[in-house]
């Protein structure tokens, strides 16, 4: 075991594959000598040079488009968008190009590309640099969506994302880059579509993604003292989704809370709730409860942002309500 931060783990995953495969390359805004806005690519420019770690213009459409075109012609690019919020500028290349090419061309062309997408709030970055836009991506057939919550998962999932033959959206929570965690000495890829039980429990299931996994664990620790045993499930990949793990857990606990940092309206959490009600309705002993951000843009003032974003207290309250 060794200690690694979440950001270092993402970097390590990229470094491992870059050492093994000449066709793996990185491009994005300030990813070169500058090391990326959050320092995630630091050192890779020195190791691999400017051919494989390239600074692009501030031009998100061509960053994603370049990933599509170079993936379709034999590279395995990793494109970094500085913030997931900037997806808007390059969305056509993702939604109408990357996601569609394989299908609409009848399997003729594949686009093995990774797009790194720092998301999430909590750092006073305000409305255009704090969003959790996972649902925009999970809504699009043809994209795979990954969202690790720990360094171990970040590393294992990055390896699988690079190995994948389809476009993989790699969502990262920017407030977790410095978070430390243990990483196995033997590094193995984590298969996409395999969730993880972050804490086993028997009374209620909390399905959480990204940073909310940690909020859920905090709430679970507190609830345990009150005699409520919480099982925390982290799907790790939003598509493909480990439905089986979620449904099995609910069958056991008969109660569920879903916690994501997205605004509630139109969220991936809503999709999870719908799936659960379709498949587990008769196993449920209480209505499904969702914990999300409020339906507002993310505000700047720390007290406002803190109020808008969901946290362990909201999960605690939701669990108490569902258990009542």
């Amino acid at each position, binding site marked *: 075991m060794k200690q690694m931060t979440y950001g270092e783990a993402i970097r390590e995953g990229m470094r491992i594959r870059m050492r093994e495969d000449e066709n793996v390359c990185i491009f994005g805004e300030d990813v070169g000598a500058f090391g990326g806005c959050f320092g995630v690519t630091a050192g890779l420019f020195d190791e691999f040079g400017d051919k494989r770690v390239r600074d692009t*213009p501030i031009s998100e459409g*061509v960053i994603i488009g370049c990933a599509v075109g170079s993936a379709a012609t034999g590279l395995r690019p990793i494109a970094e968008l500085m913030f997931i919020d900037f997806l808007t500028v390059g969305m056509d290349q993702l939604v109408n190009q990357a996601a569609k090419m394989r299908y609409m061309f009848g399997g003729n062309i*594949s686009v093995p590309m990774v797009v790194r997408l720092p998301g999430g709030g909590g750092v006073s970055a305000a409305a255009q640099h704090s969003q959790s836009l996972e649902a925009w991506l999970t809504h699009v057939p*043809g994209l795979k969506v990954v969202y690790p919550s720990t360094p171990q998962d970040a590393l294992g999932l990055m390896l699988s994302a690079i190995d994948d033959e389809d476009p993989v959206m790699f969502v990262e929570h920017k407030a977790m880059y410095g978070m430390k965690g243990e990483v196995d000495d033997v590094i193995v890829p984590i298969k996409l579509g395999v969730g993880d039980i972050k804490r086993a429990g028997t009374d209620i299931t909390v399905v959480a993604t990204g940073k909310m996994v940690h909020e859920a664990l905090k709430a679970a620790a507190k609830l345990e003292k009150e005699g409520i045993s919480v099982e925390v499930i982290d799907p790790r990949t939003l598509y493909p989704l480990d439905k089986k793990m979620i449904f099995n857990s609910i069958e056991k606990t008969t109660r569920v809370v879903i916690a994501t940092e997205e605004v509630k309206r139109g969220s991936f959490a809503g999709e999870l709730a719908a799936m659960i009600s379709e498949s587990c309705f008769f196993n449920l002993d209480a209505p499904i409860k969702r914990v999300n951000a409020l339906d507002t843009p993310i505000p700047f003032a720390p007290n406002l942002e803190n109020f808008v974003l969901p946290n362990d207290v909201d999960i605690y309250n939701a669990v108490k309500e569902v258990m009542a």
Partner: protein
Amino acid sequence: MKISNETIIEMYEKMVKIRKFETRAMNLFAEGQVGGFVHLYIGEEAVATGACESLRDDDYITSTHRGHGHILAKGGDMKYMMAELFGKETGYCKGKGGSMHIADATKGILGANGIVGAGHNIATGAGLGIQYKGTDQVCACFFGDASTNQSTFHEGLNLASTWKLPVVFICENNGYGISVSQARHQNITDISQRAVSYNIPGITVDGNDVFAVFEAVQEAVARARKGQGPTLIECKTYRWRGHFEGDPTVYRPEGELEQWKKKDPIPRVEKYILDNQVMTQAEMDKLNEKIDALVEEAVDFALASKFPDISSAVEDVYTDIVEEGRSR
């Protein structure tokens, strides 16, 4: 530049192929045999033909919604194209793409594209792939005049020029973005002027003169192969049909189409061929008959093919996942 007789014949054959394929597609659409959106290339044959004549099999192209001409010029097979227009399982895309989305990876055809301007960035990416691997391939990017108002035009040309990527940007200026004339959608007449912004060569040629297109693209391809970066080539041309089949073209001034028909690129080549004794009239007639037969063969092939099995609807979304179907 001296163009060999062999090249001239090859280009003539391709132009006739495109014209005949498109004319047949037009009729099939009118008869209701082919559905969806069909955008025909009739009148613009010299552009795709002249451009692709300088490309090798291992070079790439990106195409547009008006893509049949590009696909044929790059070596696409009429049979699989026609089958795709019919939505048959033997089509290039197994019936999932239709007229607007034909691709053939084995011929470097990175797909026709229904999003105006999407190709600029994909071609730039293909250019990056080529430069990265250090080969002397190129990518030709076809696009229309109206797409040069999309942000992708600027993004793609900016990056391709900055990184000196081997991309040839070929603008088919047919004077209209659907119903809006060029004068109403941009404040310039010659789109090649925009090359100045990227410090790359920009040239405007008569897009109905296949030799002019060939020469311009050949020079641009040579530069790209040598690592000297992209070129912007504007080919002024005209589409005889509407934006799509069924478009009543009420936006065209009276007489405009007739004026352009006088500049039909195919008789111009035929005249050159006869004047310079490249072929005899009888040889040309024979070639035309051969192509007629090929088109009919393609239609027969399409008609004889099956529609795809419904189970395939959930395949090829991903390489390793088959989506859920439904019982019906």
